[in-house]
């Protein structure tokens, strides 16, 4: 089993189980003798088979590489170390001969690593030949000899400052594009609406009713719950703080005006943007991905008229109704808190409410609702149509849709506040 230590490092293969053994031999005759000594040991190694090995025997200007064992993806860590370690030896040597007789298993990965070695020698201007490959691996080796010849140019690294500037610039240009897309959608929606007004039969009543059911009727429980809680919380906070000034009765004013003018519609609009707006974007987006929208267009139908108009009309009808229901729920929540926390009976609460709010407050709130619905609908639908092929893009567009529509709802609310203040409502 053991070789003479003087002969070479070969002993390591067996005794120390080193994976890589370099045979450094200065004179040629010595190398020849070595190979003779080597073969029986080698054959014993072949029985072990699974552990990959790579031995290099220099013979004059010829470096003989003998890979052995299982050169497969399962041993990739070993293989990478083996081939990396042989590279300096390879660069010093001249011609290379790859003797594959010892290889028991070979797959693409192993074959590629060996191909890389012989290619390295070839690019240095030396001769590289492969011998002794088993017949069933010859095809694979030949195949890998052909590939990876032309490496795609790596993109040059860009100046990080320029990249940042690029991002900022694109974001700015993107905003302009957003406005354009919003306007386009508004315009095509208007056109579709005109078309429907001229030919009322072209309105998709079934779709409209179904959408109303989904975004209106089915949304009622969650809207009622949320606004009820909001109303109750405002009232509780009001009683808690106003009590210090003895201003308990003004809590009703606060709850009434806040809920009817601002919060009722705002909370409901934000909820609708998150609940129905995201659903619109995802629905239209996945229809876009599956080419359903293209199919509609090719049948001579306008996707805006068939898909988008019923959805947006449904939203425009549903949001005021939901706002009304939500406001009532919030006032009811306030009343409950007034009774059990603020010691104010329902009769007094109603009387105070009657004094504090007028129809104007209610109008101010409810007028905003359809506009907010329009903004939510347009953003949701146009984002849906911007979905590209990937699942990631669908997710991104849905997020964008919700964020944008909530932002727009709040901006609209601010604009309306200025408007109503200036006309004295």
């Amino acid at each position, binding site marked *: 089993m053991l070789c003479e230590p003087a002969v070479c490092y070969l002993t390591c293969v067996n005794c120390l189980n080193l994976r890589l053994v370099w045979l450094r031999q200065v004179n040629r005759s010595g190398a020849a003798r070595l190979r003779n000594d080597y073969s029986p040991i080698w054959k014993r190694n072949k029985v072990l088979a699974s552990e990959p090995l790579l031995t290099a025997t220099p013979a004059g200007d010829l470096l003989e590489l003998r890979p052995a064992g299982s050169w497969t993806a399962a041993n990739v860590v070993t293989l990478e170390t083996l081939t990396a370690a042989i590279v300096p030896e390879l660069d010093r040597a001249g011609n290379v001969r790859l003797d594959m007789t010892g290889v028991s298993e070979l797959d*693409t990965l192993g074959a590629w690593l060996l191909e890389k070695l012989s290619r390295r020698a070839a690019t240095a201007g030396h001769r590289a030949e492969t011998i002794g490959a088993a017949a069933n691996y010859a095809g694979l080796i030949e195949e890998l000899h052909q*590939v990876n010849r032309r*490496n795609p140019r790596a993109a040059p690294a860009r100046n990080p400052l320029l990249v940042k500037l690029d991002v900022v610039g694109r974001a700015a240009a993107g905003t302009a594009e957003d406005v354009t897309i919003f306007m386009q959608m508004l315009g095509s929606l208007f056109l579709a609406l005109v078309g429907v007004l001229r030919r009322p039969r072209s309105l998709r009543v079934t779709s409209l009713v179904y959408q109303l059911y989904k975004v209106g009727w089915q949304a009622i429980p969650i809207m009622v719950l949320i606004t009820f809680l909001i109303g109750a919380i405002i009232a509780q906070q009001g009683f808690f703080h106003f009590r210090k000034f003895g201003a308990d009765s003004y809590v009703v004013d606060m709850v009434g005006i806040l809920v009817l003018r601002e919060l009722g519609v705002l909370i409901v609009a934000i909820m609708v943007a998150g609940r129905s707006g995201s659903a619109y974007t995802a629905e239209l987006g996945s229809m876009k991905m599956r080419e359903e929208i293209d199919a509609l267009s090719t049948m001579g139908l306008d996707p805006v008229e068939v898909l988008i108009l019923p959805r947006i009309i449904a939203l425009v009808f549903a949001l005021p109704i939901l706002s009304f229901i939500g406001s009532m729920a919030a006032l009811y929540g306030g009343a409950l808190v007034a009774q059990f926390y603020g010691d104010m009976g329902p009769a007094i609460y109603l009387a105070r409410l009657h004094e504090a709010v007028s129809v104007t407050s209610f109008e101010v709130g409810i007028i905003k609702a359809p506009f907010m619905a329009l903004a939510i609908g347009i953003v949701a639908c146009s984002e849906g149509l911007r979905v590209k092929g990937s699942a990631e893009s669908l997710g991104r567009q849905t997020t964008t849709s919700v964020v944008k529509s909530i932002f727009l709802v709040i901006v609209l609310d601010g604009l309306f506040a200025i408007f109503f203040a200036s006309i004295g409502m």
Partner: protein
Amino acid sequence: MQQEALQFAIRVSDLVVGFGRQVVIDHLTLDVRKGEILGLVGASGGGKTVLMRTIIGLVPRRSGSIEVMGRAVGGAQDVNSKKIARQWGILFQQGALFSSLTVRQNIQFPLRENLVLSQQLMDEIATAKLEMVGLSPDDGDKFPAELSGGMTKRVALARALALDPAIVFLDEPTSGLDPIAAGEFDALIQTLQQTLGLTVFMVTHDLASLNTVCDRVAALADGKIVAIGPMRDLLLSEHPWVRAYFHGKRSQMLQPKAS
């Protein structure tokens, strides 16, 4: 017995698969030999894809046993299945490429998940696989949404082959391709089968690929394998469905060649 088990890549015995009241696969037995290309034919909706998906463990079975490369699949030994999963590659009918990854990342995905190797080597392997399936390295940076149908199938095949599996399952690999592309794809499968020593399990309706690449063809009807063997044996089969399939108007073009 041991030796016999070794020569089969897939052994399905007495398999029953059903959904609700409907029984799709009814006591089916099928052996796939190592290193062969087996074509599976059957009526549309007749359970070919279900059979394939059952073998790879995506559809639960009611009874029967499945062995892949000598290991039992599914059932209680799910841990075991993960080991087997490295031994097979699957080409889904629609490609099923990960849409948010580039082509190169798609091919590298199985490598990255299963092996520890340097990014450079991974890039080289991915490019090598791309070229092996007949695409150019420049296609590596594209996203799946930017690929044509034929390219999608090639990339899906490259991904299926990423780990050099022993078995490749192909679900209608040539459907939706023009005859030239389909022919190229057949040739590609045959070349790769020879160079990599693959076992190929191919669900197909393409009579030309059945005739040219498949070593054996299995016909699935009424939830059973009603005929199996080389193409010329199937052409002689007396089973009414098999006769209708191979001797229908559309398959007349095969007759002079086969007989």
